[in-house]
């Protein structure tokens, strides 16, 4: 096997290991999201969802820079002092990797599965948005606010480029005019802050995670709670809480399979009953962003250990 591909396999192996570390950190750090205010929870969720993406990219970048630095003599070149078959991150002494090593197979399998998961996520999002465009085509004209002749009480916003708020006839029958304004304000808050776009991107980034449900739940809750908090700038939080309770009563009382989704109802109401922006103000989001910087630097500092591990793994 040619040596450039040997270097490539080593870099892929580093990416795979960094991906595993990113997933582990996300799983361990996820419970902390529940302690944070909705705004902090959103930032923290972004940091966690990006970890399995950023860590491999940063790690591979650092290893490539290290390879370049060694080949240019910017750092002490000890490649020739290593034993034979000890792979190096060095562009002057390219490694040779055994073509039949199980480690290489595992790395290839990981890469294939990750690509498949990402492709599936992108396809899923595309289908959802295609259905959203299809739904909007059933209504004539381009409107921001549209009525749906459906007896179930719901309101939702769809569309990325030109979002539309759909409110059902059932909801209009259930709520007073003021309460409908509150519901509309909630949906407008989603549009103003591009929550549909952000959630779409978030869902695609989740494809690199092994455990997604928890992070998805935290994200959704934070998104809805943030929209609620924006509504409370214009309307009383207790009024919004009352609307949510009325909607929940309607949902539990109906025989129809209610097709509305959002977030943890009781937690949202509890949040509205408390002071705004509750939750500890902790530097968790900032700390989470330190990991993508710290880990690659540690890898670079301990690159000899990494080379030894990879030599054992990819040569066996």
């Amino acid at each position, binding site marked *: 096997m040619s040596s450039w591909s040997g270097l490539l396999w080593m870099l892929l192996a580093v990416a795979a290991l960094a991906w595993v570390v990113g997933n582990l950190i996300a799983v361990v750090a996820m419970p902390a999201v529940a302690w944070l205010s909705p705004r902090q929870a959103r930032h923290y969720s972004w940091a966690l969802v990006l970890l399995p993406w950023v860590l491999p990219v940063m790690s591979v970048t650092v290893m490539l820079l290290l390879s370049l630095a060694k080949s240019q003599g910017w750092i002490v070149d000890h490649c020739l002092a290593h034993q034979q078959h000890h792979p190096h991150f060095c562009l002057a002494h390219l490694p040779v990797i055994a073509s039949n090593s199980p480690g290489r197979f595992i790395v290839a399998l990981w890469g294939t599965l990750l690509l498949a998961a990402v492709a599936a996520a992108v396809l899923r999002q595309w289908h959802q948005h295609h*259905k959203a465009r299809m739904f909007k085509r059933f209504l004539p004209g381009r409107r921001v606010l549209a009525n749906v002749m459906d007896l179930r009480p719901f309101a939702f916003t769809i569309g990325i480029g030109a979002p539309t708020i759909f409110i059902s006839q059932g909801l209009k029958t259930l709520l007073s005019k003021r309460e409908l304004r509150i519901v509309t304000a909630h949906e407008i808050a989603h549009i103003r802050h591009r929550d549909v776009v952000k959630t779409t991107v978030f869902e695609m980034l989740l494809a690199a995670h092994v455990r997604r449900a928890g992070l998805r739940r935290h994200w959704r809750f934070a*998104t809805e709670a943030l929209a609620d908090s924006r509504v409370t700038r214009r309307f009383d939080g207790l009024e919004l809480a*009352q609307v949510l309770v009325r909607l929940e009563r309607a949902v539990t009382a109906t025989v129809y399979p209610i097709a509305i989704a959002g977030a943890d109802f009781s937690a949202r109401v509890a949040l509205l009953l408390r002071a705004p922006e509750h939750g500890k103000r902790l530097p968790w989001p900032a700390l989470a962003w330190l990991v993508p910087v710290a880990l690659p630097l540690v890898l670079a500092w301990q690159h000899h250990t990494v080379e030894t591990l990879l030599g054992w793994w990819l040569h066996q």
Partner: protein
Amino acid sequence: MTQRVPALGELEIQVLGHLWEHKDATAKEVHAQLVTARNTSANTVQSAMERLYRKGLLARVKAGHSYRYAAIVSKAELLGELINDLVGRFHADTCSSAAAILHAAERIDAHALDCLEEEIRKRRQERAL
């Protein structure tokens, strides 16, 4: 209609819209209506109606040399299923194209709702004082 709504193109939606208004029609009749709105050939309309038939949204009966198509599902049914698809069934967890107001998967009993409403009422009274 219990299956998920199949993907529909713009022409297919327009054909469905026409059939919902006119009960049944041949491809030629639909084309005559649509040709003023868009530059579409009769064959294209025929193909769209054939696709809708294969997707299970239209029924057809032979009428001379052509078929008369009629919609099997009503507009309300189709939109209802589409809403379910878009916003997610109440025990599903994959939805991102919609930002909606309430999660139906969490089942709160009536007593808990009564307690919450009582708490809200008390807070409002305290504020009023």
